[in-house]
């Protein structure tokens, strides 16, 4: 195993910046639970440039995850089209995108396989795709974990490490597939503020190294502005784009940004839009209950 890890090559790829353009055009999704139509996403269009960090913010249950599921190929769309690098993922005649390792998902509650060690978890993708032998994949997994500062826990099971380490390992597990797009669904939701800020810096560090396109769903506005190139505020259900905030803050970024004036101005600017939608969502929820 150790010889394999010594031979394994480095992680980042040279052409990473030239791929991963996502084009979401007029996408509508209607769920049909028991004959009652629920409009989850309506006529939603988002263009994401290659290597962009696109943050999606919106009230709970507004349809953000529906969009992510459509890109990942977990759910179909009702109309519209989603392209990846100019090739149609799903659209007219093909409502459900094929699942593929070019769009790896990191989940809300963490989905490291509890029955595999961190290294085996990371090695999983290349092994099932058949792109590496088991020894190669394991060696590369160990190397990549070490790069992420997780060399000491590569042989541990997910249940034995902290949630922060597990989440970092999960991002490593996604990156070993060399994806075009990283789809993150509120990955740091349940974390305390301190762990969260460490997670953010580690994600930014990964991003600066790989320049992978990131589609990141969150509730946390400050997180959105700290990490993103653009923050897209969604309306309450059905989801449409309400406001797009460009974050023209230079990279690399670090925690000092959080106390800067330009950061606070951006947060204030976005907060109004998000709050408005949150109130609407809350009132809609009350109507449903009444």
């Amino acid at each position, binding site marked *: 195993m150790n010889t394999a890890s010594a031979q394994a090559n480095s992680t980042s790829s040279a052409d990473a910046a030239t791929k991963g353009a996502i084009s979401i055009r007029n996408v509508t999704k209607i769920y049909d639970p028991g004959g009652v139509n629920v409009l989850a996403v309506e006529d939603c269009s988002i263009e994401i440039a290659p290597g962009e960090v696109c943050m999606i913010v919106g009230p709970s249950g507004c349809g953000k995850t529906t969009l992510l599921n459509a890109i*990942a*190929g*977990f759910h179909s769309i009702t109309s519209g089209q989603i392209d990846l690098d100019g090739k149609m993922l799903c659209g007219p005649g093909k409502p459900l995108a094929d*699942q*593929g*390792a070019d*769009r*790896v*998902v990191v*989940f*809300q*509650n963490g*989905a490291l*396989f*509890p*029955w*595999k060690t961190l290294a085996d978890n990371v090695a*999983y*993708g290349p092994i*099932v*795709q058949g792109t590496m032998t088991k020894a190669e994949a394991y060696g590369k997994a160990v190397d990549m974990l070490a790069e992420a500062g997780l060399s000491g826990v590569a042989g541990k*099971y*997910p*249940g*034995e490490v902290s949630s922060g380490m597990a989440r970092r390992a999960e991002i490593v*597990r*996604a990156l070993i*597939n060399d994806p075009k797009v990283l789809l993150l669904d509120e990955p740091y939701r349940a974390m305390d503020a301190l762990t969260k800020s460490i997670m953010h810096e580690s994600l930014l560090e990964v991003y600066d190294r790989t320049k992978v396109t990131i589609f990141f769903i969150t509730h946390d506005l400050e997180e959105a502005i700290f990490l993103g190139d653009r923050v897209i505020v969604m309306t309450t259900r059905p989801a449409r784009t309400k406001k797009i905030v460009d974050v023209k803050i230079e990279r690399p970024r670090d925690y000092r940004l959080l106390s800067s004036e330009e950061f606070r101005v951006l947060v204030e600017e976005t907060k109004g839009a998000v709050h408005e939608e949150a109130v609407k969502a809350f009132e809609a929820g009350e109507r449903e209950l009444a």
Partner: protein
Amino acid sequence: MAQATPNTEKSKSRIGKFVSNVTFWRGVVAILVFLVLWEIGAQWKGWFGYMMPFVGKVAPPTDVIAIWMEVGQQSGYWLSWWLSSVRVFVGFLAAMIIGIPFGLAMAVNKYFRGIFFPPFEILRPIPPLAWVPASIIFWPTTEMSIMFITFLGAFYTIVINVLGGARSIDVQYLRAAQSMGASQWDLFSKIILPGTLPSIFVGAAVGMGITWEVVLAGEMMSGGGQQGGGGLGFFIWGSYMGGVMDQVIVGMISIGVAGYISSSLIRYLGHVCMPWRRMF
């Protein structure tokens, strides 16, 4: 030799650790206290001048131990252990071999589930003991009919646990695997199977308990086959018929011990097969 030494040392220290464990001694003390209470209850013929149910009717542990020493020298007693264990083991193994794939197939394939789940659910509430007459008629030998009863005892529990376990695997694990390019077979062998293992072992532990429950009834009803060594169930029944109540209790406790050993073995196997659950 040089390699064997640290190994034996390790296992010795593990046993040493086990014996020096507070939990272990708590268990020992609990059993001793129970025996003392039993002794007092058995010796004390009337409590405060009233007849109490059970009290004084059951032989005290000292008598039981004395009889046990006697019985333990007879080969028939140990043959009973052997016969019952074989019946339990064969029935249980058959239940695992058939039940695990059957449960998994029902979990992953909705057509298979649609066809086999309804009849399974109708057969499941039928107690294994209700199968005894049919089993005796159906199977050519008594031995096979008893094993069939033990098989039934474990089968339903194992299938239900496997089915439930496989169906309750977090969909995120499946999606994560799919998004990394896993094939259907990868999903099954690397996600569903390990994800179901905990439920398989729960089913096995419960099923093992049930096989010991039903093997005795099977033996009692079928007469246990050969003379003098028809299994622990027949041992109890024969002792009761012969009016040797002390020996009945010996048989009862033997079953308790056998069941405990069996479930410990399953727990140990679970421990070996699921290293990720060791910290729990």
